[in-house]
Each structure stands twice: as C-alpha cells, then as structure tokens.
C-alpha cells in the first residue's frame, strides 16, 4: 500500500466516523444491539433469541441477547448498567418491572443509546415499544373464544402470572371488560388468581376453584403455564366437557391438552417474530428513518404506530388449535 492509498483510506475512515454514515457501519465497527430479557434459558426466550439472531443477520446488526438466571428486576438493572458502560449502539429490553427499569433507561437515553422495548407498553425511558399484538384485542379475542364455548353464559375465572405482571393484567382487564359489555349472562366468579406462571400452582388453584364454584364453566389463563395446570386439573376431574379452558400457551407444551379437547384453543404471538421485530425497529432507528403510522417493518409488514405514545404494533395473533398445533411445533415453538 502506497502513501496515497493509505491517506485516502484514512480519510474515508475519518469521514465515516464523523458522519456516521450507515452504509459504512457494516465495514466499520458493526452496530451492536444487546437485548435484556426477563430470564435466560427458558424456551420462550430461546425462541426470541432465534429471531434476534436472524434479524441481526438480515440487517447487519451485531445483535445478541442476555438475561438474568432468575426472574429478578434488580439483575436486569445490573445488566442494563453494564450495557451503558459498554456503550452499545442500541439496547433492547423485555422489562420485568417497569418502575425498577425506569431510572437506568433514562441514563441510557442521556448517553445517547436508543432503547427498544417489547412487552413494555408502559415503560418510561424507551425510544419505541414493539408489540406483535394489541393488548386489548388480545384479551378480547380470548374472551370471545371462551364465550363461544360457554354459550355466552355461566361462571368463569381468570388466572394471571402475578397480580402485578403488567401485560397479563392488562389482557385480563380487557377480557373482563369485554365480557361485561357483550356477554351479560356470563359472570366472573372470583377475583383473578395469581400463579399462572407455574403448572402446579394453577393446578392447585383450579382444584380449589372447582370446589368453591361448582357451576364453573370456563377458565381463562394468561401466563403460559396457567392453562396447562388448569387443563391437568380439569382433565383429572373429568370435567373437560363441562369446563372450557382457553388461554395463552406454548404449542409444544399444550399439544396433549389441545388434542384431547381440554384446552379449547390457545393464543400467542410468535416469540421469534418478536425478537426479529425488535432488531428491525432498532435498525430503522439507527438509520434515522422516520417511523409513522403505516410504516413498513422489514419482514413483518405494515405497522400501526402511535408516535406520541411511542408504540409500534404489528397484528400477529397466533391461534393454537388442533389444526395449527403441529405446524407451529415444527417451527420450533
């Protein structure tokens, strides 16, 4: 390499550094996006990671995922602090506790790092929140399904992960409100129950609920283990014809209960697409593209955008029933 070429090369490098030209980003230090999830190593977030990796490949972003070993908001904050210190280009976050994460996200914004959240519609300090479902609609769709199986009358109960898990409770609120408005003959038999994150807790709760409410006709489970525990209990008590179980489930986990008709239908969004969507939106932000209603999210299609509320929604509700379950399992879900 002669001196002229060297100087030209240096000049190009400086120019790229000064102007931050996106098209040089791949050749220069690649943009790095690290996403902090709720917990590492569970099937759901393994699927999210798959999407993040795919998005990283498609958009030329060095995208990866980290998460605490157990469900602990303080550990998420620690991981976020590390990322700010490392000066990554974008932070992704699936928050456990929106209040706990708020201060550290404000520090990230102050350091000029955009934050893309998922499952965090109320997270302060974010740049954008990406959802594959509309929370209200997601609750309503499941209530419609339950109502159909209950002939729009009778008692039902609802389970959530914990009484403070933001999304679960938002879905439950929407479902119950929809019932009150549209199905006056249906009745919520008791306040919503926590424990839908654990199979044996929801199993135990269901056994008690069946005794407390002998006329129970439906169980709506938000939290992916809720319908499983409820389904196990209902099947064991041979009440599957009388009590309809509907809710949020993972296809491979729910397959036996779906096939024998205990779980009438499951609802979910695709975690791999969610991971992909976070990277796609991050890429739009990095490139400085304008994000407005109807924007095309590469690979996912048109999105409904609430610019003031910093929300991006792509409608992707996934229905899990006897016809679809095998196809979804073969996608690794």
């Amino acid at each position, binding site marked *: 390499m002669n001196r002229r070429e060297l100087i030209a090369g240096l000049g190009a490098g400086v120019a790229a550094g000064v102007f931050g030209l996106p098209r040089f980003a791949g050749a220069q230090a690649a943009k790095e996006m690290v996403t902090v999830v709720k*917990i*590492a*190593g*569970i*099937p759901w977030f*393994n699927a999210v990671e798959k999407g993040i990796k795919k998005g990283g490949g498609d958009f030329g972003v060095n995208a990866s995922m980290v998460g605490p*070993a*157990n*469900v602990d908001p303080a550990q998420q904050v620690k991981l976020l602090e590390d990322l700010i210190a490392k000066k990554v280009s974008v932070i992704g976050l699936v928050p456990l506790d929106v209040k706990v994460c708020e201060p550290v996200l404000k520090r990230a914004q102050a350091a000029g790092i955009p934050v893309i959240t998922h499952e965090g519609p109320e997270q302060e300090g974010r740049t954008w929140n990406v959802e594959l479902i509309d929370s209200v609609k997601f609750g309503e769709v499941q209530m419609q399904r339950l109502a159909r199986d209950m002939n729009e009358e009778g008692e039902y109960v609802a389970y959530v992960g914990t*009484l403070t898990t933001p999304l679960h409770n938002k879905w439950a609120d929407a479902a119950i409100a929809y019932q009150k408005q549209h199905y006056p003959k249906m009745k919520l038999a*008791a*306040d*919503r*129950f*926590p424990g839908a*994150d*654990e*199979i*044996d807790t929801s*199993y*135990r*709760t269901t*056994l*008690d*609920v069946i*005794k*407390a409410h*002998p006329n129970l006709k439906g169980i709506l489970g938000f939290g992916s*283990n809720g319908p*499983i*525990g409820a389904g*196990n209990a209902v099947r064991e*008590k*041979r*009440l599957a014809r009388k009590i309809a179980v509907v809710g949020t489930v993972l296809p*491979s*986990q729910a*397959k*036996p209960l779906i096939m024998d008709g205990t779980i009438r239908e499951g609802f979910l969004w695709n975690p791999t697409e969610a991971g992909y969507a976070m990277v796609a939106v991050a890429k739009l932000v990095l490139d400085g593209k304008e994000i407005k209603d109807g924007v095309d999210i590469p690979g996912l299609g048109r999105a409904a955008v609430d610019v003031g509320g910093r929300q991006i929604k792509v409608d992707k509700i996934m229905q899990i029933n006897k016809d679809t379950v095998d196809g979804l399992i073969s996608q690794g879900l």
Partner: protein
Amino acid sequence: MRERFGTSALARFAGSHEGRLLAVTLAVVAGLSVATTGFLTVQNLFDLLTSYAFLGILAAGLLVVLVAGGIDISFTATASVAQYLALSLANAYGLGWTTTFALAVAAGVACGLVNAWLVDTLRVSSIIVTIATLNIFYGLLVFVTGGQYIYALPDWFSAGIFWFETVDAEGVSYGLNLQILLLVAAFALTWLLLNRTTIGRQIYALGGNRDAARRLGFSTRRLTFFVYGYMGLMAGLASLAQAQLAQSVAPTVLVGRELDVLAAVVLGGASLTGGVGSVLGTVLGLVLLAAIQSGLVIVGVSSYWSQLCVGLVILLSVSSTALTLRRRAGRVSA
C-alpha cells in the same frame, strides 16, 4: 425439674409447640368446614395431599437438616437436576419405575453429598454454602439443557399410580396416587430415623451442641454427610412426585419454592439453631399452610388478600409460641 412434674402426657402435649399448633390447625379446619361445604371432604383431603406432596417430602428432608443444626437452601435446584436427569434418561433408554427412581435418588444424594463435603471442609455457615450450590446446580442445569422443557414423558410415568380408586357421586374419581404414597413414605421414614435409630439421636445431639457431640465421640463428619445426603434423597423423591403431577419437566419452575418449605418446617417448631424439631410438628405446619391457602380460595377470599392472610397466620402462630417460651423462661428464672 423444669416442667410441672407428674402432669399427664396429654397436658404436656397441650403445652408443647405441637399441641398449640394442633389447636390452631383444628380451629382453622373447623372454621373452614363450617364456612364451606367443599372443604372437609375426603375428596379435598386427597386433593390437598396430592398438591402439597412436593412441599411435604422436601419438608421432611429439611427437618432433618435443621435438627442437625444446618440449613439447606439448594434442594429445589437438586430436585430440578434429579428430575431432569432421571426422566430424560428414562425417555432415552426406555427405563422403568425402579431405574428411574434409582437415578433420581442417586442424583439427589450426589448433590447432597457435595453440599455436605463443602459444609464440612470449608466450615462456613451452611446457608452460604447452599445458596452458592443452589446457583451452581441450577446454573449448570440451565446451561446443559438450554432450559428446554420435557413435555413427552414415558407413558407409564404419565399414567402414574392409582390404587383403591373410588368414584364419588359426581363421577369424579380419586385414590391413592404416587404423590400421596411418596409423601406418606417420606414422613414415615423420617419419623423412624429421628425417633427409633441411634443416628437419629446423634442428629439431635449434633444440632443441640456440636462440641459436646464431638466429645461424646460422634463422627460429626459422617453425620453431616448423612443429613445432607438424606435431604438429597428426599429432593429426588419429591422431584418425581412433582414431575408426575405437572406431567412435564421444567428446569426453571422449582427454584424459588425454598421458602415455602422452610416456612412449613419452621412453623412446625423446628429451630433454625438446631437440635429442636419433630415430624409431627412439620406435618402440622404443612397442614396449616395448606388449609389456609386452599381454604381461602374455597371460602372465596379475594386473591389480593390471600398472601396477607397466610403471613398473618404464620406470624400469629409463631408469636404465640415465642410468648409462651418467654413466659416460661421468666418463671424459671424467678
């Protein structure tokens, strides 16, 4: 003599922690049976035994560790390792009941012995050691398995055991199942160990006064290995009871339940400083917790209040014991 000499055994029992706990438990059960029709039924009894078997079997193991003056926090991780190992091998090699149980128990005991070795060698407080091993066992498990759940269990395991099946008026069947059998076996074995064997007496002595036990010539090292190994054994059994009930193996769901077990054992009168505790007390502690948790749902108390109620009952029960002990201590010194 420190106790009222010559009073009958019954009066002595009534004054003991177990006696008071029994009274509280009976009061709660009576209250719930009056308030509802669904609580005091054979059906509910079987349901409760089944759903609380996992916690109960672990409580039996933890009782022995507490009596010996130690504590173990890692047993939920041990149980996760045991059930994952046993059932994935059962799936892969088509094993039967005996081998699967042997594997789960062996894995549990192995983890327990690691704890014992660390506690004995490092001479650090066992709570620190077992918090560390909880993370190590759990971390290794999640790392090796990638957190994959096992949904497809061997058919014979999914079907489980169902003896003396009875069908009630509404066509709902119940009977002796795997969970209840293991629960009863765990408590019976622990009772025999603590009350009918020399080792049991040595365990009480070790927990009561470690130096005295050593001077009496007990091998504290061998006893330490025994109690943590026993905890591991119980964790192995409990893990299969839980997997059969949940009809799946999930490496991430058991860790975090330690405190429920500890609450039942301590509520049952076992001392965190060692030397004190009984199987009867632990059983009652567990029954009380189960009765409140299940009873609140059946009575229809809002789930927003239920944790508060559980906490209050634990606090009331423990403070009544503490107050009596203090009064008694005051009388002795006066």
